């Protein structure tokens, strides 16, 4: 129904464009040069004013109604729902909606049937209202716009102002996204920290949220506040990141040096795409590779030399993550190394240094801030990487720095806590948001430091 309304509005907009155009042309008797704005701009103006407000109303209605309907139903069934906790309430509304509008109903009962009737009638009313409103807006807008079209009317100014505001709105989405991320993380985290002291979370040594006790009936009972200690997760993340950087930093850096200072054109033509392909492979593929090929390989090697390697060892996850980050490090440091002016290299060569001496004593020190920043960005990337560790690292939180044992990471725990049909209101699921906040803060800090390093220590050569 509403979809047809939207289609109708779109059709109206198209029609309004042509009507506006031809009215503008007719208003000057075909002498288009007498118009202030081009006929097309008059057409656009009419299309915007005819369909725009109505479409906006439908959009707002689409976003706002579910919440309004829910609260009306809740108010009407307040007596029946009085003893419900939030998860049951959500399940109740979900089922009632499913009965009313079609869908999979988990536990039908009489109250839900009654609520479904209310939902259906509410929905009918609101559709009637929005249809009426949209039609009124469309009719009013069309008439108003139609009456404004005249040779001297500044249609172009209106259209261009609308376009400009649309552009501004679009660029604000980046800010809105950041605000959305920060608010949603902080909001859930505050709820979490109201149950679990932040000190226990940041400095606790024990992580096993699966054993958190949640009382029956949805309300959280005595949650053991000692089991949400994030230190083992941070240690695991650190260990895997460290192993990854151990692979990625030297290989990526040397590859960048070789490609920028040694490689012939032909080698570069082959090697660059290889690195780009390595960078373009989805992380889930790396995860599969780690879990199925690399981890058993390390396990086999360990067995043959008498070492006990866990099948989900930090080593396997770290090495594969390192491979994934190689192209990241190499492309970032390639840019930095290429930015070092040729005159420095020539000067060094003129003093009799070999190429490697030039690189080690002149180019690298000059490029150091950029390289440090590239490595920091790579670390931030490794910390936030999810799929490789979800597939190849462990689930149990061990506080160890032995790379042969299984460790878990922040991202793995976020996934484990939130995947599956869990009710969205226990300390367990909120812990995922607290971890997400931690992750966001860590990566943000790394990025900001990386930026500062470049800004502060960069040498200006020109």
């Amino acid at each position, binding site marked *: 129904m509403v979809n047809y309304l939207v289609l109708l509005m779109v059709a109206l907009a198209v029609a309004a464009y042509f009507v506006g155009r031809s009215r503008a042309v007719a208003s000057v008797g075909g002498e288009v040069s007498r118009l202030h704005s081009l006929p097309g701009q008059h057409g656009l103006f009419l299309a915007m004013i005819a369909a725009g407000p109505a479409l906006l109303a439908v959009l707002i209605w689409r976003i706002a109604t579910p919440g309004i309907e829910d609260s009306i139903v809740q108010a009407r069934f307040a007596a029946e729902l009085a003893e419900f906790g939030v998860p049951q309430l959500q399940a109740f509304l979900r089922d009632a909606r499913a009965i009313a509008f079609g869908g999979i109903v988990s536990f039908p009962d009489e109250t839900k049937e009654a609520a479904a009737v209310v939902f259906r009638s509410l929905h009918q009313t609101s559709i009637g209202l929005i249809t009426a409103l949209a039609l009124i807006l469309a009719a009013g807008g069309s008439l108003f716009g139609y009456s404004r079209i005249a040779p001297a009317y500044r249609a172009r100014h209106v259209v261009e102002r609308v376009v400009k505001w649309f552009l501004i709105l679009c*660029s604000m989405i980046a800010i809105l996204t950041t605000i959305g991320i920060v608010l949603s993380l902080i909001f859930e985290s505050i709820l979490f920290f109201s149950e679990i002291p932040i000190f226990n979370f940041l400095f606790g040594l024990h992580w096993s949220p699966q054993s958190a006790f949640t009382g029956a009936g949805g309300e959280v009972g005595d949650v053991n506040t000692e089991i949400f200690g994030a230190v083992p997760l941070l240690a695991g993340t650190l260990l895997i990141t460290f192993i990854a950087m151990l692979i990625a930093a030297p290989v990526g850096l040397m590859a960048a040096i070789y*490609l920028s200072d040694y490689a012939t054109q032909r080698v570069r033509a082959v090697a660059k795409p*290889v690195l780009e392909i390595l960078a373009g492979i989805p992380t*889930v593929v790396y995860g599969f590779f780690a879990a199925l090929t690399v981890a058993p390989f390390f396990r086999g090697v360990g067995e043959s030399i008498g070492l006990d390697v866990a099948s989900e060892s930090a080593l396997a996850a770290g090495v594969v993550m390192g491979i994934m980050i190689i192209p990241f490090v190499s492309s970032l440091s390639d840019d930095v190394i290429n930015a070092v002016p040729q005159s420095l290299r020539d000067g060094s060569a003129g003093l009799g240094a070999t190429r490697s001496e030039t690189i080690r004593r002149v180019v690298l020190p000059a490029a150091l801030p950029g390289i440090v920043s590239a490595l920091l960005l790579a670390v931030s990337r490794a910390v936030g990487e999810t799929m490789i560790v979800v597939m190849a690292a462990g689930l149990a939180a061990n506080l160890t720095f032995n790379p042969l044992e299984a460790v878990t990471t922040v991202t793995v725990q976020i996934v484990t806590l939130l995947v599956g049909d869990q009710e969205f209101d226990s300390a367990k699921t909120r812990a995922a948001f607290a971890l997400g906040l931690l992750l966001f803060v860590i990566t943000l800090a790394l990025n900001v430091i990386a930026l500062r390093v470049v800004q502060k220590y960069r040498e200006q050569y020109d």
Partner: protein
Amino acid sequence: MTDTTLSTGPASPDGLHTGDAAKMRLRARYAAEARFKWLGAGAVALAGFFLLLLLSTIVTKALPAFQQHYVMLEVDLSADKIDPADPRAANFLGLVHDGLGNEFPQVSGRQERRLLRGLVSTGAGVVLREEIEADPAMLGGTHRIAVPLDDFADLYLKGLLAKSGPSQRIADVRVSGAGDEVALGFADDAIMAMARGAGAVEGEGGGLRLTSGSQSFLLRIAGGTVKITELSSREAGGAVGKGTVLELLERSVETPADATLRTIETAEADRKITDREIVWLDRLAGAGKIENRWNTLFFFTGASREPELAGIWGAVVGSALTMVVTLALSFPIGVAAAIYLEEFATRNRLTNLIEVNINNLAAVPSIVFGLLGLAVFLNWFSLPRSAPLVGGMVLALMTLPTIIIAARAALRAVPPSIREAALGIGASKVQTVFHHVLPLAMPGIMTGTIIGMAQALGETAPLLMIGMVAFIVDIPGGFTDAATVLPVQIFMWADFPEPAFQQKTSAAILILLGFLVIMNAIAVVLRKRFERRW
């Protein structure tokens, strides 16, 4: 001055730059130079090696999944089996099982029959039903129908489940006795040595026992198969043994006859398929009743718990729907934002803030976008879980920075003279941008968009957060249906314990990589074709 230094140079062997020590130093420096160069080349080669290893592992694992073995069975579709008035009510799987049972009339006993039935896929009934629905004229007679084999049978036929040793002829073998257990007689005791080599257990009195932990010796004789269980050498020469009949002998072997010995090198305890099933499959294959076909099921069905029925189509459709949403949101918004920042915005605090935000968003871990989607789209706007609509919205937010950054670079590359010319002949700012600058920047913007979409196509973590990890059998039909996407399907299949899913996972990865290669190739072509130097 110069003369003196020149003349003394060669004469003194310990001059600062010419002496032996200096030569040694120089040699050391050159050696260091060569080492450094090789280190760099080694790093590049190592990256190439990793790529090759990754791709070759996946390709070799994936190839078997593109084929599937089918067994051709005579299925009785007469009226007393299928009611022509209501064909859908028939027990199709039962009909397939009857057809298989007819191939092996001698198989009796509950357990054995169940084992036999397990050779065909549990989805064989659905395959049969669809075939009848496509051609109702089949009803009423007996028809030869191809049904897919079970995953383990399929893997065995592909040679991935058990390693077969060489078959060899053994002359003068006697078989005596009837029933399941028979006595065997061999003319020479070479078989004893073979059994020892095959891991047979030494029993009492110098006898050998072939257990489930050793290789299997299957003796083909007189149209039947006997599995050797015990062996001992005779003093008079030759050997005697005992065996289990896996397949009834067509005639008794009173006088010594030639036999073929087939060895299965993987011990029965270490494989997921029994000797009996191997014998049955070999018999079917020997009779030409097994066909290796291109695996159409894999390409055109949805997900399933049964590996031989699991297909990729549901995930491909889910991915396509998700990408449509992502593209529809991120392309216009990204281009609009880039146009504003590059062409209209004056440098002020707001635009600075926007730029810092865009750069930061590009570095935010993808899983955090998933948390955003969960908290805002699912919990706040109560949009449906697992839907391509929500997945597409989350991925759009994620790709937005990529598209904005690429679009800005493309807009910046358009020379100012174009803008000045347009403005000079009276175009407004908006007209200049939309009629002149944007079309010229479009190839660059498209390239950036395609690369951003390729990233989004491979993204998994944020979609796990919004419930796209659910097990969904149906092919999604719309933007709000529950769906999964290719990378998530890969993630789920990688977790399944059945060995056949490993091949399926690799095959799905190949398909995903195929899409990525196509997208990137388009981007490269666009760049090559339309790149302009001003």
